[in-house]
């Protein structure tokens, strides 16, 4: 046994830091997110979060960390959900409304924030078009950019891009497939079969002979109209020449 033997033995004590240590450290400094699996509409969801709020959502699957990174551009490791966040998150998933849930918007452009905030105003189970969102945020020419902003939504389900449809009312594409989009809307109470039948028949607006108001077909006020009193319109012009004015809740006049 020589001093060099001792030094060699000491050299061999050099080791790699556990991956979990690096992940925990970067989560503590806010450089990577934590995620938890929660039950929600149409299945379970992997929800990523950090000190700024919720940062990502994907359907729970075999590689949640990978799927979250693909959607949000941020790494995430499994971790415990803080109690306060758990409560508002559970509520948001149950009601389909954000409420007091904090959202991490740091990765989003100002335009995307505007688009997603507008989407979050659409009530659960109702549909608005890309054009509708564009006009509501005073960018009527920007339907395509609205479509892109929604497609890149890092926090689907909670920021409900699934409530935005094509201008004809058909359900359209979705990051997790149009079947999932339909399942989410049905979980929120949309009668998709009936809605798609109307779309097929070219119906874009609904009115009633008991009032002088016309609505988008999925508006909660339109859903209350009984078959007997129901009036169907294909265009705004048709509705207005029948003496109708636009509903204050769904604001159909701005629909593209």
């Amino acid at each position, binding site marked *: 046994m020589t001093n060099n033997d001792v030094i060699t033995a*000491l050299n061999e004590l050099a*080791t790699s*830091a556990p991956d979990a240590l690096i992940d*925990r*450290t*970067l989560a503590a400094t806010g*450089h990577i997110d934590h995620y938890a699996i929660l039950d929600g509409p149409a299945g379970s969801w992997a929800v990523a979060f950090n000190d700024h709020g919720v940062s990502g959502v994907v359907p729970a699957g075999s590689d949640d960390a990978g799927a979250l990174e693909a959607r949000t551009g941020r790494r995430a490791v499994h971790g415990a959900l803080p109690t306060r966040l758990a409560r508002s998150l559970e509520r948001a998933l149950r009601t389909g409304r954000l409420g007091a849930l904090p959202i991490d918007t740091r990765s989003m452009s100002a335009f995307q924030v505007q688009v997603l905030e507008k989407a979050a105003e659409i009530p659960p189970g109702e549909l608005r078009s890309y054009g509708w969102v564009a006009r509501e945020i005073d960018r009527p020419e920007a339907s395509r950019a609205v479509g892109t902003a929604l497609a890149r939504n890092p926090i689907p389900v909670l920021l409900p891009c699934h409530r935005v449809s094509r201008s004809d009312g058909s359900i359209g594409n979705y990051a997790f497939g149009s079947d999932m989009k339909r399942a989410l809307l049905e979980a929120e109470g949309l009668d998709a079969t009936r809605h798609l039948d109307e779309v097929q028949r070219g119906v874009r607006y609904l009115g009633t002979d008991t009032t002088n108001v016309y609505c988008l077909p999925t508006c909660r006020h339109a859903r209350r109209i009984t078959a007997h009193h129901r009036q169907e319109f294909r265009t705004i012009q048709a509705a207005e020449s029948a003496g109708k004015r636009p509903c204050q809740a769904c604001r159909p006049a701005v629909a593209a």
Partner: protein
Amino acid sequence: MTTRAAPRRLNARLARDLDDAFPTLVEEFADGLYSGVRRLAPGRADAEDLVQETFLRAYRALGSYGPERIRSLKLSPWLWTIALNLCRSAARRRARRVTEVALEAASGTATSPDDTAADAVTASMEAVWRRRLDALSTAQRTAVVLRHVVDLPYADIAEVTGRPVGTTKADVHRGIEQLRRLMADEHTDQE
């Protein structure tokens, strides 16, 4: 071990965009810090906590430094200064706790460091090395670990421990001598 050039580039990146570069700092220094702290702290879990806390403090400090200060920082000795401070205060807390426990209950109910996950061979090697390094003075142990486990240059160790380079070299040399004697004795015991 990292080359000299890489950390300099890292300084520039940290000065330019701390949040963009910080994960690289962690990736780059985690192995060295963990390897060393593990031999200075009593157990794996303590070592992990101390290394995590080292990075947290480093992050907060870097956030409060201007770009000039970050660019001129010698990252490795700077991180080790933080880590050693944390190791020392953890040791003080532990000593206090052990005294309290010893006063309350006379016999061995104190919790042992958790190496339950490690397999038996690794665990016994852990114990062997802990016993060997515990036999050294704090100064020798620190110097030996930083020099030969972490591979820090003497100048950095001197800076981190606040002792002259000559003293540091002597600490390392005496530490190695003592470890050699201990290991030779273990050998004789086995025969």
